[in-house]
């Protein structure tokens, strides 16, 4: 549970950064080429978050299993 809370906190902290980027399109274009690069970052971010979330869930399953085995 603690891990999931930490994970959600991580996303909440990261989201203002993502919002900031869409405001400063011009600056962003100068740094990274075209503004459509946002979509690439967003997609990578989602895939990474999804896989990590899944790993956390698997991790929890294993921990529960370990607990059961100890008993």
């Amino acid at each position: 549970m603690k891990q999931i809370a930490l994970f959600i906190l991580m996303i909440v902290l990261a989201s203002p950064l993502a919002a900031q980027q869409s405001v400063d399109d011009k600056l962003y274009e100068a740094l990274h080429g075209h503004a459509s690069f946002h979509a690439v970052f967003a997609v990578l971010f989602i895939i990474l978050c999804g896989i990590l979330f899944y790993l956390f869930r698997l991790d929890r399953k294993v921990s529960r299993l370990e607990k059961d085995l100890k008993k």
Partner: protein
Amino acid sequence: MKQNWWKIAGSLLVVFSLIAGLQIRVKPGLLNTVSDHASTSEAPFKVSISGYNTNFSQAENQVWLVNDTLRKIKTCASKITVTDDQHIIAEFPPVAPAADPVFGLAVYNSADGLLFKPSAINTTDTFKAVIVQSCTPKVDVNAGKQFAFPFRYVLYESIRNLFFHVPMWFCMIALLTWSVFNHIRYLRTFNAKYDVIADQTIRTAILFGILGLITGSVWARVTWGAWWVDDVKLNGAAITMLAYLAYVVLRNSMEDKEKRARIGAIYSIFAYVMMIALLGILPRLKGTDTLHPGNGGNPGFNQYDLDSTMRPVFYSAVAGWVIIGLWIAQIRTRIHNLKEASENQ
């Protein structure tokens, strides 16, 4: 280590596709073309051109307009002023449209090759006595060839998402194929081992399906302008996900293990056939309108859809993600088996 080689191979393929997919440049192209006159035939006019990834200042430029469908009558710029690598101003003599009131604009230099914007300048003029200003620019077809991703309007840099969004679906379909194969094996042998593999694989496939839906939604917002558009493939993907979520609910709702496995296996086979119809057949039927490439009677990937520079990156991304999906499914299966063993003790 020896039995883990495929996991390492899969990881390396995904890492390769990430690095190559983000590092390789997009080919040069023309972003904006703005004319200072609404009419093109009354007086000479200036067009400000902004390019993307272009090298205007590094070689001599030629700029011309085309209007006819065959792009044969060319109107060359009388004066070209290069501001920097991305900006150029071209002056044209008066020219009237021969057909539609839309001109295509081409820029050529030996560093970038031939760049073309199909509907670059609109004119208020209608067809009248054609003022022909024909010229023949010297173009080397092989100029500007470089290992880079194609420049596409609407997509621009987001063309890279092909390596991240599309493999999610390929991975889901591969995992579902593996699971239906195991479900058939289960129905032939009634060996619970196959049922566990198939069930855990479906649960992993749902992860990739959901990731595919969300990433697709984000990409659609940037390119098509909406989070969700009315598209056969999108709706088909959503129905597929619902069908497989229903599988999970159905299976979890039954207590008896054998009954659960049998009904689950039969449901899974039907869901799989439906998935193939919804994602593979319906979007390809003639008359269906879809925004996805390679549909409406065309083969999935043709030369136009998948550039030869994108092919190696795309295929390694697909292979890598499929392996990672199978890996996750295998871990899930192992956890499930351990759980069963501990419960039986």
